[in-house]
């Protein structure tokens, strides 16, 4: 890697697996579960969080020496809220339907614990470039889980991916439906998101014994 030193590259790759924000650090669960009934919404959410986290990390990191530690939470909240307003307005302008689906969950990026967590744990103590990479890495780890959950919920729940009917047409009885396959409508309901994440955690921890809690 010419562009990134080994240490910098680790900032991006670590949160993807062994230090994943959702399955290991348990941050930012709320939004991860509520909007994953469709793959498209999951992808948009992942991209929004990435934008907010990367830019926010850089801003906080630039200001880290002038923020009085007593009021840092308020400063952080204002920075995130400003960024989220921009994201929200962009979504409303260019993807109105989708912003209706995401409804309040765009606003809830503000209180997404990943963002505050990374500000507190990383951006306040590190240089802007590292903070930027850390933001990208953590948001990518978060997005990865979102996309996995969204993929399975949409595929098994409504038989589509990004709106395309990949398993055939349930009404015309083509593709898999011809041999008696049925959509599992339960996957679309919110409790299944929790169970899918639980299963992801199970698989991840069975593969890497070091992560097991006692």
């Amino acid at each position: 890697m010419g562009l990134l030193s080994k240490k910098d590259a680790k900032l991006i790759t670590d949160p993807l697996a062994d230090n994943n924000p959702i399955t290991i650090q348990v941050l930012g669960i709320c939004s991860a579960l509520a909007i994953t009934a469709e793959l498209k919404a999951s992808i948009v959410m992942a991209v929004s969080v990435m934008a907010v986290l990367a830019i926010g990390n850089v801003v906080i990191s630039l200001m880290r020496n002038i923020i009085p530690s007593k009021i840092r939470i308020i400063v952080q909240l204002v920075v995130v809220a400003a960024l989220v307003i921009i994201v929200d307005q962009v979504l409303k302008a260019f993807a109105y339907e989708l912003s209706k689906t995401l409804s309040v969950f765009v606003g809830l990026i503000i209180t997404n614990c990943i963002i505050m967590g990374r500000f507190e744990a990383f951006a306040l103590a590190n240089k802007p470039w590292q903070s930027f990479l850390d933001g990208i890495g953590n948001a990518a780890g978060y997005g990865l889980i979102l996309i996995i959950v969204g993929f399975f919920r949409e595929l098994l729940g409504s038989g589509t991916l990004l709106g395309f009917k990949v398993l055939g047409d349930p009404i015309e009885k083509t593709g898999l439906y011809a041999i008696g396959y049925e959509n599992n409508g339960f996957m679309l309901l919110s409790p299944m998101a929790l169970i899918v994440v639980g299963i992801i955690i199970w698989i991840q921890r069975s593969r890497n014994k070091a992560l097991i809690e006692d």
Partner: protein
Amino acid sequence: MEHIELFFKSIFIDNMVFATFLGMCSYLAVSKKVSTAVGLGAAVIFVLAITVPLNWLLDQYLLQPGALSWLGEEYASYDLSFLSFIMFIATIATMVQLVEIVVEKFSPSLYNSLGIFLPLIAVNCAILGGSLFMQSREIPTLGLATTYGVGSGIGWFLAILAIAAIREKIRYSNVPPALRGLGITFIITGLMAIGFMSFGGMLTGGDDEAKEEVTTTTVEAEKKIEETKALADNTIKVIE
């Protein structure tokens, strides 16, 4: 009547944790012991009961399109709703700080039991979520907004109390090693959420108001029903 209806609806049907997954971070992190869970739950009820009505006032007289008309004719065309995120979170952060100071001054014993949880709450999604849902569901009066705040707080309290009790007991069970801790908590929460879905039928009486306020869950369920209907129609056609 509508107060009672909204109260039960916000506790059971639109339960913060099980229906909308709000406040999951602290729900998972602070539910290892019942006593701490009770403390955090009480603090959430307290803060929701204060911030939701306050943000309702802000929304009504400052943020909604045309809300500024009380200042005079020329302000009637302003629409400041894009500012709602920053206004709401600022209100919540300052209120939490203020409540902390007041409680510390006047009731040290309450402060000792709630104190450490109050700062945590400013960044709890359940609190901001309460205000945002209040805004998006267009709750009509201040009284109803208070009821909604208290109701959602109690719903969250119930959820964290239940999971904390289960987690205390599950320590004695033989869970597969890889599922221990976080994994099993997720799955239990999922099962509890399925249980809570059964409350969905509680308020589906005949009146039109209740029908308008369909939750996302029922929308999804309706979609499913329509699909099934289409399938049934198709089968009938095939048979014919």
